[in-house]
């Protein structure tokens, strides 16, 4: 009832404005939610650099403090669209995080951008395990961490605690995959807890977590503060991983196909603008504002340029494709199915078939093609490959679950 009322009021307002006596073009209203992470950039740029306006949209952006708020406001119709974690859209459609809010994903906002970091004490312990190999490689770092975990268990020390951002997040699955690949059981050998990204560095410096997986710019923030060491980036763990997506309320998408198409065109153009190196300093300043990220423009610029601090006092290393906004904005069903398989792997959902159905209903490359007037590509989706050599066959997720040691 309430939802209908909101939309009806909006439509009425627009009908009034497009009377014959008002010849000037009327911009159609779209409200979208975002959170304080670097990858809210495409939405901010769509609004502030005129991309929404040139598509005839009046884009209103609202900052939220939690993913739960984003989901609830999509459910209530307060937001038509939002920056969302790719896996959270599947969970929202399934009703895994209540309330169930049917969402469609017409486009991807960015790829990668996350990093796993540990405290100085853990990094030192990893170095001391000897034969650590090159700790810059995720597999070697994982093996070293496994030895640290085993040594702690032997002397009866409490398990290490890792922070991540949300149960249905790339961060949760990337962290779990990395731990499990090294032989560390994420449920038994360590503790995982949700920590809101802006609190990650403070929670680590207060000694409540020993490591975390979080998105830009927050890993660099704790390294710059001298307390964290990056041990793996998501681009090394799972190159080309869909990170945040544009999640759209399904009711709204069905009711306003033209506005949806305009929004996808505006945000896709904004993504291309964000990836242009010449625009990065301006983008960093846009995002640094108090109402958006409220952190130093220098740190944001470093994240945008892929200059990643790994250890305090050590010069930043350039990481290719650390965070990308453009080039792969068409939703990837293969990538989405990997998230679906991980949800089943970690017991968040029981039936693989049901999760795959929800994934299909949520990830809509056809909407991307429609908005941009593209024909569906002839070639299949890019395969998902992991750092440890495992390849995810999107056509057969059950086989993947067997391969990683889980009876389908």
């Amino acid at each position, binding site marked *: *009832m*309430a*939802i209908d009322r909101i939309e009806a009021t909006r439509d009425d307002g627009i009908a009034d404005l497009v009377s014959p006596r008002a010849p000037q073009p009327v911009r159609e209203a779209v409200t979208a939610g975002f959170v304080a992470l670097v990858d809210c950039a495409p939405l901010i740029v769509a609004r502030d650099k005129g991309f929404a306006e040139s598509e005839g949209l009046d884009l209103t952006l609202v900052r939220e*403090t*939690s*993913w*739960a*708020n984003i989901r*609830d*406001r999509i*459910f*209530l119709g*307060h937001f038509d669209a939002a920056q969302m974690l790719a896996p959270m859209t599947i969970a929202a459609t399934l009703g*895994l*995080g*209540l*309330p*169930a809010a049917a969402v469609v994903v017409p486009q991807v906002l960015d790829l990668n951008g996350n990093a796993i970091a540990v405290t100085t004490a853990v990094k030192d312990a990893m170095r001391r395990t000897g034969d650590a190999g090159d700790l810059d490689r995720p597999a070697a770092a994982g093996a070293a961490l496994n030895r640290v975990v085993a040594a702690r268990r032997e002397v009866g020390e409490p398990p290490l605690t890792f922070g991540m*951002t*949300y*149960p249905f997040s790339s961060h949760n699955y990337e962290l779990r995959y990395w731990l499990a690949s090294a032989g560390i059981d994420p*449920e038994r050998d360590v503790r995982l*807890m*949700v*920590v*809101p990204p*802006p*609190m990650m560095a403070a929670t680590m410096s*207060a000694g*409540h977590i020993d490591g975390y997986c979080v998105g830009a710019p927050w890993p660099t923030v704790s390294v710059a503060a001298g307390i964290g060491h990056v041990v793996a980036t998501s681009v090394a763990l799972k190159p080309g991983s869909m990170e945040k997506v544009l999640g759209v309320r399904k009711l709204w998408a069905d009711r306003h196909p033209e506005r949806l198409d305009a929004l996808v065109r505006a945000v896709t153009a904004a993504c291309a603008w964000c990836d242009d190196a010449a625009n990065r300093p301006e983008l960093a300043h846009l995002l640094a504002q108090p109402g958006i990220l409220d952190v130093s423009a220098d740190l944001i610029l470093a994240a945008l340029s892929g200059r990643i601090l790994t250890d305090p006092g050590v010069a930043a290393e350039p990481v290719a494709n650390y965070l990308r906004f453009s080039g792969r904005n068409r939703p990837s069903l293969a990538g989405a199915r990997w998230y679906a398989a991980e949800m089943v792997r970690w*017991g*968040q959902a029981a039936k693989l078939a049901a999760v795959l159905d929800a994934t299909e209903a949520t990830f809509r490359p056809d909407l991307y093609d429609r908005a941009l007037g593209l024909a569906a590509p002839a070639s299949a989706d890019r395969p998902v490959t992991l750092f440890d050599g495992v390849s995810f066959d999107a056509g057969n997720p059950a086989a993947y679950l067997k391969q990683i040691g889980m009876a389908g």
Partner: protein
Amino acid sequence: MVDTRLTILLIDENPVRSAILEDGLREAGYTNIVHLDTTHELLRRVFSVDPDVILIDLANPSRDVLEQMFQVSRTVKRPVAVFVDQSDTAMIEAAVDAGVSAYIVDGLKKERIKPILDMTISRFNAFDRLSRELEQARSELAERKVIERAKGILMKSRGIGEEEAFVLLRKTAMNEKKKLAEIAQSVVTAAQLLG
């Protein structure tokens, strides 16, 4: 229909608002109320309190921490649902508009939770109104102070009386279509710049 045995956990970093709500709940007969004003080790504390109802303010980023309770996990004793009745969109909307979210643990009936939610929503709304009125009173006081200072500056520099100074400020404000306080502020700023 008030079930006073329910344990209510209130997570709110705002001491005034949480006191207002706690008072209301106690007056209504609820005695088992636990208030957390910090979200440090939140999940562990939630489990040790073992509440029937959890109320958390929406601006609190730790909502995402609570969402971890939805997960199939060994640490959770009882299942958790958000808002008793998902079909009751009006109730959810009223709560979100008031700036609060409710988690109801393990199959509590709607009739038992409704008085708690109604109370929470009305107290959160009352607090919001109070804060806005306070903010307005503060800014009015600040405006009055700046107007007094501007009058003093004009009286001294132009050798005029208080009444005349005030008329001058008001006339300028009207001519420039600005607020009296804005004109007064520019007088004060100019005086500071010119020494």
